[in-house]
């Protein structure tokens, strides 16, 4: 076999591998909620409007406009909340239910703010979950983290809501614990973590908004298709209900809305049952139940004149069991067209 033939064989092998890879790319997540204008780009295709119920796979890029936000949930339960004017890529996602240690969950924050709440993979095999932003890589140790990336300055800010992360650059690594934040600037070692309450106002505001986003789903495994179908059905039912409410004389529209809600309820019921099974399967396969993010409150800055802050929990101290109804304050509402809401 001469060199040309070897080269051709290699090229052919690469092409086949590429085709096979694309053919094997399967959805790894779905869009749980959208507010405002957001888009989804798959491969080389042009970006298309992001809709509730859209399936997301490795290589996809989710982008939010200036006033938009999105919630993407992955099959293992991980929840990704994208802030306004932000974009992230699902670099590689593969959830191996039988051999979780061989799974991969790698994401890239391209700009803006991303909060991620780890699912079963992050709880069971932390080493498989990574987020890259600028020159920094974030290794997960726990549950709930907000990452803010400014491409212009190259600053990557990590705010840990619960658990801990390793913030790594070529300059070094910092372990950032709950209630603190650290900044990585290009190749320098990240800053010493300090209380997030001492963070600059812009960081505090962004972290608070991400923390108080509403309608965040639980971070436990799901059946992708069932969940995607359920949220899409509910979004459709909500849209029809809004149209029927705006046109109360239209009996046909009212009937349509009622039927859509009935279908949505059936779909939700099936998806909830499938999710319970998915969780049980994950636990049976040796997975660890991920910690639930506690109901969040906006982060209060330190009083002016206060000295250097010690490490404090980001979330307000949880009150003892109460009989009064709690309400989530502030934050981004995900109400509006196309968003499935439990209210």
């Amino acid at each position, binding site marked *: 076999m001469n060199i040309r033939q070897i080269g051709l064989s290699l090229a052919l092998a690469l092409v086949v591998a590429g085709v096979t890879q694309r053919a094997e790319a399967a959805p790894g997540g779905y869009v*749980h909620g959208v507010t405002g204008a957001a888009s989804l780009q798959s491969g080389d295709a042009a970006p298309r409007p992001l809709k509730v119920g859209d399936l997301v796979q490795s290589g996809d890029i989710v982008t939010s406009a200036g006033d938009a936000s999105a919630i993407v949930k992955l099959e293992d339960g991980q929840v990704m909340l994208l802030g306004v004017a932000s974009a992230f890529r699902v670099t590689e996602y593969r959830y191996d239910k039988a051999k979780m240690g061989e799974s991969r969950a790698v994401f890239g924050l391209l700009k803006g703010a991303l909060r991620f709440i780890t699912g079963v993979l992050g709880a069971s095999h932390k080493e498989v979950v990574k987020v890259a932003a600028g020159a920094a890589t974030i290794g997960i140790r726990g549950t709930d983290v907000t990452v803010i990336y400014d491409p212009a300055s190259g600053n990557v800010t990590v705010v840990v809501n619960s658990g801990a992360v390793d913030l790594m650059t070529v300059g070094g690594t910092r372990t950032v614990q709950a209630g603190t934040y650290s900044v990585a600037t290009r190749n320098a070692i990240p800053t010493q973590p300090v209380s997030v309450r001492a963070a600059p106002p812009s960081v505090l505001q962004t972290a608070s908004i991400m923390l108080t986003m509403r*309608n*965040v*789903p*639980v*971070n*436990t495994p*799901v059946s992708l298709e*069932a*969940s995607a179908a*359920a*949220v899409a059905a*509910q979004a459709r039912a909500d849209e029809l209900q809004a149209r029927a409410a705006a046109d109360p004389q239209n009996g046909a529209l009212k009937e349509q809305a009622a039927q859509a809600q009935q279908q949505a*309820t059936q779909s*939700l*019921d*099936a*998806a*909830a*049952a499938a*999710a*319970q099974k998915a*969780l049980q399967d994950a636990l049976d396969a040796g997975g660890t*139940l991920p*910690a*639930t*993010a*506690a*109901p969040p409150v906006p982060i209060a800055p330190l009083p002016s004149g206060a000295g250097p802050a010690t490490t404090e929990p980001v979330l307000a101290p*949880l*009150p*003892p*069991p*109460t*009989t*009064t*109804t*709690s*309400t*989530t304050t502030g934050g981004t509402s995900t109400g509006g067209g196309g968003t*499935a*809401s*439990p*209210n």
Partner: protein
Amino acid sequence: MRRASAPTSLQGARQLVLRLGAASLGIAALIALAIAALRLGAADLAAFAPRRALERAATQPPSRDDERWMRARAQLERAASLDAGNPDLHEALGRWHEAAALRAEALRSRSDAELREALVDFRHALALRPSSAYTWASVALLKLRLAEFDDEFSSAAAQAAGLGPWEPEVQLILANVAFGAFEKLHARARSTVLRAVANGLQRQGDAIFDIASRAGRADLFCRLPGIGASRQALRCV
């Protein structure tokens, strides 16, 4: 003639005595009723201010030097002594001790003593009014706070769920109990308690979810009976 009037005077005197006796009895009864009413009224009056203090305490941050708060307890105790058979007053005392425990926790002090006092008061209230689902639920919640997961804990939760499955306050308290210590409940109590909590999904699903989240039991929330039929299922998919 004189002989004939003597028996008349005697009869008259007898009738007078009888009438006076009856009147005295009546007056005595009236006086007794008046005293009882006064006591009950006094008990009510005595309880009014501390009840207001309890309501205020629920919304205001605690203070170590809150004399009004301490006075409220004395007033409640006095009210309970005036009207010992009133379960509401014993329950109010239980609430005071429970709130005192929460205040102590907020001030990072020990609170077990207050919780135990509250338990005594609630048990007393239950002895007088065993049909109160709310009081049973309160007992279960106190046992949870004291980490006493004994028969009383499970039976109180089950009683509350059985007597008040559709009462919103009971549902929230039971949510705290279920999500706080589900595996500590007796097996036979679990489904009853979960069903009562699930009954609240429609009207206060958000609050119930918050409780589940605080307790780190969103997984259990998603296993509530009938969750699929509720919009709350959107959190679980």
